[in-house]
C-alpha cells in the first residue's frame, strides 16, 4: 500500500508540475465557460438549473481526459523507466492503481473547477443544491471511469499523442453507445442492448437528484475493467 501511495504521490507531483496539465485545464475551462455563458447568459431570462449547463459541458471531458491521461504509462515506455518499474518491488497492480489514484486527484481539481458555474449561478437566484451535489458526484464517477479508459489507452503505446487518440476513440464509442441504432425494428433492438453500456445515459439520474445503484456500479465496474486491462497490458511486457 505504501508503494502504491508513493506511485500516486509521484504521479500527482508530475501532474502538478507539468505545464500541459494546466493548458489542458485552461482549454477545458475555456470551452465549458463558453458553453456556460451561451446557455446561461445568451438566452434571457436565464434559467437557474445546473442540469441545463452541465449537459453540454460534460462532452468536453471526452477531449480533456485523454490529454490528462496520455502520459501516465506511455511516458514510462518512451523514457524506458517502465523497465525500472517492472524490476522494482512495486507490483504492476500497485503501479497502475497508484497512477489511477493520481488521475483521480486531477479529476477532483477538474470537478471543483466545474463548481465555479453553479456558484456563479447562485449569485442570481436560489439554486437546488441537492441537484448540484448529486451532479458533482455523478461527474466525478463518470470522470473516474473515463480516466481509467484513458489510462488503459496510455498503456497501448509509447507515443503520448497516439495514446491520446486511442483514448479519445474508445471514450467516444462508449459515449455514443446509446446513439447507435434507431427507435424501431431491429436497430431498436441493437440500441436496447447497447444503451446500458453508454457512459452518458448513466449520468442522467445523478443530475435528477438520484443516486441509482446500477449507475454507480456501472461506473465502478468500467473503471475496474479498464484498470484490469491496463494491468494485463503492462504485465504482458514481463513475458516478452
Amino acid at each position, binding site marked *: 500500500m505504501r508503494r502504491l501511495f508513493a506511485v500516486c504521490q509521484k504521479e500527482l507531483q508530475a501532474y502538478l508540475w507539468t505545464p500541459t496539465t494546466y493548458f489542458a485545464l485552461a482549454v477545458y475551462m475555456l470551452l465549458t465557460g463558453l458553453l456556460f455563458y451561451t446557455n446561461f447568459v445568451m438566452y434571457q431570462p436565464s434559467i437557474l438549473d445546473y442540469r441545463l449547463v452541465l449537459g453540454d459541458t460534460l462532452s468536453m471531458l471526452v477531449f480533456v481526459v485523454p490529454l490528462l491521461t496520455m502520459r501516465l504509462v506511455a511516458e514510462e515506455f518512451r523514457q524506458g523507466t517502465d523497465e525500472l518499474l517492472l524490476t522494482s518491488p512495486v507490483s504492476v497492480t500497485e503501479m497502475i492503481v497508484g497512477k489511477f489514484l493520481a488521475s483521480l486527484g486531477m479529476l477532483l481539481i477538474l470537478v471543483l473547477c466545474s463548481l465555479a458555474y453553479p456558484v456563479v449561478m447562485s449569485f442570481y437566484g436560489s439554486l437546488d443544491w441537492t441537484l448540484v451535489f448529486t451532479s458533482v458526484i455523478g461527474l466525478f464517477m463518470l470522470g473516474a471511469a473515463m480516466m481509467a479508459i484513458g489510462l488503459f489507452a496510455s498503456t497501448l503505446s509509447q507515443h503520448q499523442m497516439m495514446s491520446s487518440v486511442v483514448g479519445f476513440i474508445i471514450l467516444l464509442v462508449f459515449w455514443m453507445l446509446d446513439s447507435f441504432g434507431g427507435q424501431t425494428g431491429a436497430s431498436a433492438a441493437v440500441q436496447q442492448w447497447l444503451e446500458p453500456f453508454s457512459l452518458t445515459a448513466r449520468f442522467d439520474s445523478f443530475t435528477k437528484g*438520484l443516486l441509482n445503484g446500477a449507475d454507480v456500479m456501472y461506473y465502478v465496474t468500467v473503471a475496474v475493467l479498464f484498470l484490469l486491462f491496463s494491468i494485463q497490458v503492462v504485465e504482458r511486457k514481463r513475458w516478452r
Partner: protein
Amino acid sequence: MKKWLGHTNSVVLSIAAVGIFILLTLFLRSLGGFQLDLTAGKQYTLSDQTLTTIQGVKEDVRLIAFTVSTSQNQKLNRDVTDMLNEYAKRNNKLKVEQYDLNQEPLLAKQYGVTSASIVLVQGEKKRVIDIGSLFTQAQGSGEGAYQFTGEEKLTSGLLGLSSTRQGKVVFLTGHEEIPLSQMTELSSSLSQDNVKTEEVQLNQAGSVPKDTSVLAIVGPERDISATELKSIRTYLNDGGKLFMALGFHPNMGSDWKNLDALAADYGVKDTHAIVVDQEQTNTLGPLWTVPTFGSHAITDKLAASNLYPVLSLSIALQAGEQKDWKTTLLMKSSAASYGETNIQGLLNNETEKDDKDPQGPLNLGYAVEGKEGKPKAVILGTSALLSDTEISTGGNRDFVLNSLNYVQEHSDGLTIRPRQEQDYKVAYLTPAQAKTILTISVIGLPLLFAVIGILLWWRRRRA
C-alpha cells in the same frame, strides 16, 4: 512455455472480466429501482400501486412521447420523459420512445395524435394520454408552482391496457343535455378504461339499450316525458345503474316533475336552489364553489390527495329517508353559503339571502346503494364539471371518473397523489452582470490556468 502460459492467463482473465462486466451491468439494470431519491418531495419515488402495475406488465409496451419543444415547456417535457424513464427502468418490457410532434407529423397521425401526447401501445391495443392534461396550476404554492399528475394517468393507462373489463355508459339526449360532442375528454378517459360511450334518444329507441352499464343524464334543460321515465324506471328496476348530474335551468322549479321524481325514487330531493358560496369559492365568483367531501369510496382518496372539484351553478339537494336505498353525502358547500331560490333575481345578477333561501352547508351530491351495499346511482346537483371546458379544472375529472367507476362497480379506479413541482427559477441579467459572468467564466478562469502553465513552462525552460 512460461511466456505462452502468461499470455493465455492474461487473455482468459480479460475475457472473464468483460463477461462479468456485461452480466453485472445487465443484472443491475434489471433491478431498476435500486436508488436513493434525494429530491425534495421524492419526485422520482413511485407509489406502490404504480410499482405493482409496472411489475404486472408481461408483454412489451411502447411508451411513445410526442412532445412539442418550445422554450416555455422545456421543463414540462422533461417531467414527462423523466417519468417515462422511471417506469422503463423498472421493467424492461416498457420501452420509451420520444419524438418531436412537429418533426414527426406522419408518425403522430398513425397514432391519431394531434397534440402533445403519450401513446401506450401493446400489440393492437393503444391508449392516448394528453400531455396537457397532466399539468394543473397549483393553488396557493407561489408563482411557477404546478401539479403533475403523470404517474396517476400513466399507471391508469397501463392498467387499462391489461384490463379485460368492458362497460358502456349511455348518455340520454333529447332534453338539451350536454352532448357527448362537448364531453370528448370524458369519453376519451372512459375509453382508456375500455368503457364505451354512446347517446340514446329514448323517444326513438323506446328503451335503454340492454348492454348499458350506466345510464347518464347530464345537464338536461327540459323535463323527461312520462314515457321516458317509465323506460328509465324499467331499466333501473332490472338492475340498471344511474348517473344523474342536474344543471341549472331557469324553469327547473316548475318544469322538472319527472326528473325530480326519478331522483326521489332514490331518496334525493332537488331543492331548486342555486348555491351561492362566498367562502369556499375561487376567483370566478360566488356561483362557483369548491366543495368539501363527505366520506365515501368515491371521495376518500381524492380528499387524501387534496384534489377537490370546482363546481359552477350547482343545485342544492337533500336526502330524505328511504327504506330501499342508502344515500351517502358526497360533497357539500361551506357553512357560509346559501341556496338562492329567487332564480329571476339571480338571472338579473341580484342575489341576496332572504328567509326563503336555505342556509349552508348545502349538499351537492349523493351516492346511492342498495341494502346489500351494491352501488345503484350517483346523483349530483351539478353538471358543467363533465363538459370539456370544465373537466380539467381542479379535481373534476377524477371526481367524475371515480363516480362512474363506483356506480359500475369498478373498484380499482386510481387516484395517486399529484406531484407538486416548481417551474424553472429564472433570473433577468443586466448587461453589466452578463459582462461580469463573461469575464469570470470565459476569460478569468481559463486565463488563470494558462498563466500557471506558462510560468511552469518558463521555469522549466530556464532550469
